[in-house]
Structure formats: structure tokens, C-alpha cells
């Protein structure tokens, strides 16, 4: 114990917040508040979220990305999050890992999208060492040529957040709510969702993935366990997060937009 503490001297401190089944909107609000109003580094791991929920990036257009009629019929919530990137459907089979850091925390890391993603991919490479052919491919986390995690970022003047939703497991039927996106990486080669993604459970157990991730984080940071109450205590009360649930009316209007677009 004394030896590992000595080895950790000089590493930046990070608060490790372990959650289970927290609703994804609540998680996103927490992340945005910590990004904007905290000066600490945070690693948040949320093991599953309770209800299937669709999460679009900041600029996502529902009419282009979603099968809206099915979504309205089945009452699936749709969220627009504060980070960039594409659309995911998350549920109890999703494991979320988020890093929120000050820009000077990682030595030599420039807070731009690609360097941050390269850094995180090296961290996850440790997790998948000997388990699967993991790599960062055109900004996606893949095992072989199949994507198993969606990642996105938000970068402010002095801090950044990098978050990932890992597909430990998923429901085939849920993927039917998502259209093939217009903007897709080349390696996707027009494959539909089920041919393009894979389940992490085929490679690693849930607890092993979480434990290995914590170990990898511990090799670069000095971990300090935190509770949800700790995170809420540090937060400024005036800040209003931008991630939000889309109203049914908005989704209905999006159907109208897609109909008029197809007729023009």
C-alpha cells in the first residue's frame, strides 16, 4: 500500500464517481455542471441507465437521424445533449464512462478534439489489452471493424469533457429507432446498425470492464472516491444545463419537415 502511494505522488488528482442506473439526462446535467462550475477533475462511471433513451448530439436533426413515428408510438424519450457527435440509444446494457479535466491536467495534451480522443484511446487500449483488437478508428472505438462505444466531447476555455457510451449489451429491436446517418465514417461502408456494432459482453464481463477501466485511470491519476452528494455540493446554483428532452411536439414538427423535404 505504501509503495503504490509513493508511486502515485505527482499524478493529478481525479474524483471517481461510481453510479448505477442513473437516468442519462441526470448524468448529462451533472457532467455539464461539473464541466462549467467545478475546477476538479472527475471520472464518472454510470453502470447502465434505467429506461431506453435516444441521445442525439448538439446539432442532430431528428428528421434525418430517427424513425420518429416508431419513437412516438413507443414513447421513447429523445434527448439532445451538450456534446457533439452522433446518435445513440442507451439502456441498462450501456456502461457510461466520462472524463472531465482541466486543460493542463494531462501533461502535453492540447485540448482539441483529436488529441483528447487519442489520449483516451490509449487509456482504453490498456483495458482491452489481450482481450480484443481494440483501436480508435475514424474517431470510433472499435473491436475489429465493429463499433462498440460512441464517444463525444465538449471543450471550454480551460476544461474539457470526453464521454463514452459503451455497448456492453443492447436490444436488437432498439436499433430500429435509428436511421442510417448521413455523416458516417468510411469504414462503416453503409452497413446497417446490426452489422456495424458489436456487444462488449462477447469480450469482457461487466465488472471486469469497470474494474480494468478504474485501474487504467489509476495508472494516470490519483483516484479519490466521491459520492453523488460530493458532486452536488461543489456545483454553482445559477448554471442551467443545455442538454434537454425533446418535446413530442418538436418530434411531430420534425416529421412534417421530413415530409416537406421529400416532396420538394
Amino acid at each position: 500500500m505504501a509503495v503504490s502511494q509513493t508511486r502515485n505522488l505527482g499524478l493529478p488528482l481525479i474524483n471517481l464517481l461510481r453510479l448505477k442506473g442513473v437516468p442519462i439526462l441526470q448524468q448529462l446535467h451533472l457532467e455539464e455542471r461539473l464541466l462549467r462550475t467545478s475546477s476538479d477533475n472527475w471520472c464518472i462511471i454510470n453502470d447502465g441507465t434505467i429506461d431506453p433513451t435516444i441521445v442525439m448530439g448538439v446539432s442532430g436533426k431528428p428528421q434525418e437521424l430517427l424513425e420518429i413515428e416508431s419513437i412516438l408510438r413507443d414513447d421513447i424519450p429523445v434527448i439532445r445533449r451538450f456534446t457533439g457527435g452522433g446518435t445513440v440509444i442507451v439502456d441498462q446494457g450501456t456502461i457510461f464512462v466520462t472524463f472531465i479535466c482541466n486543460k493542463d491536467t494531462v501533461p502535453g495534451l492540447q485540448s482539441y478534439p483529436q488529441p483528447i480522443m487519442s489520449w483516451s484511446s490509449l487509456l482504453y487500449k490498456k483495458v482491452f489489452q489481450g482481450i480484443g483488437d481494440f483501436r480508435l478508428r475514424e474517431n470510433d472505438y472499435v473491436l475489429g471493424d465493429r463499433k462498440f462505444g460512441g464517444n463525444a466531447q465538449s471543450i471550454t476555455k480551460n476544461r474539457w469533457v470526453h464521454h463514452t457510451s459503451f455497448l456492453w449489451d443492447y436490444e436488437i429491436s432498439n436499433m430500429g429507432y435509428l436511421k442510417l446517418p448521413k455523416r458516417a465514417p468510411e469504414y462503416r461502408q453503409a452497413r446497417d446498425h446490426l452489422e456495424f456494432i458489436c456487444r462488449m459482453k462477447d469480450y469482457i464481463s461487466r465488472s471486469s470492464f469497470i474494474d480494468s477501466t478504474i485501474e487504467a485511470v489509476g495508472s494516470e491519476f490519483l483516484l479519490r472516491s466521491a459520492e453523488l452528494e460530493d458532486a452536488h455540493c461543489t456545483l454553482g446554483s445559477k448554471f442551467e444545463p443545455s442538454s434537454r428532452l425533446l418535446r413530442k411536439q418538436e418530434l411531430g414538427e420534425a416529421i412534417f419537415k421530413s415530409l416537406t423535404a421529400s416532396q420538394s
Partner: protein
Amino acid sequence: MASKLWATRAASYLKISFQYRGFATVIKDLKYADSHEWVKVEGNSATVGITDHAQDHLGDVVYVELPDEGAEVKQGASFGAVESVKATSDINSPISGKVVEVNTKLNDSPGLVNASPYESGWIIKVEINNADEVKSLMDPDQYSKFCEEEDAKH
């Protein structure tokens, strides 16, 4: 340098070739913030955008979040964002004042920020409060040096 070793290691793992682009363009008569925005002041009116250095490091811009006309901006504070490579990145105002015009062309053509960061990729026009604020910004030579030093550190 630790940063170059780290970057080389990442590049090798990712199997990408690593080419330095050379120095980013800097325009005379503009002033620059350390968060890589530029401002052109003409009387009590200012035009703001992001620099060539910024657009190069951000990657292809796919979306620009613009403020509303009439919004107040404050020097050093964020007023909007660009999206590139799955990331939203804040745009911070180099000057305080009121937004009088936004570049609506960026709604359909966000790539103008990459293609023409100092001209057709401008982002907002501001009626400025205090022209003295410009004195705290960098001139072109200072900004060029700042960019070189920043890139060398990482």
C-alpha cells in the same frame, strides 16, 4: 519532449502519418485572443471569428452555434460554439459589447470557418462597449509567437 513522445506513440498505435502543417496564417490589422479568436475593430464596430490556427486544430466544422442578435458578449466569455470531430468547442469573445449581426451563412455552410476563417467565415459583429479592451489582446506577431510556443509545448 514528453508531448512529442506521447503524440508519436499515439500516431504509431493509430497507424496514422504525422505531418506538421507548418505555420498557421495570421492577418495584419487584426487583434488576437489567447483562446484563438480574432477581432477586427472599426470605430465602435467589431467583427469576430476564430483563427486559422484554431480551425486547423479543430478539424472540419460541421455546425456553428450562433448567439441571438442583441445578445450581450463579454471579453473572455463564451458566446457560441463550433462542432467538429464529435466535439463542441466554445467560442469566446475577444471583446465586450452587443451582437448586432451573426453570420447566418454558417447555418448552411459551417465549413466557411475552415475555408475562410478571416473573411467569409466571420462569426459575429459586435457594437463594442469599450475600445480600450483591445489593448489587452495580442498583435499579429505576438499571436504568431504564442501559437508556435503553444504547439511546441504539446
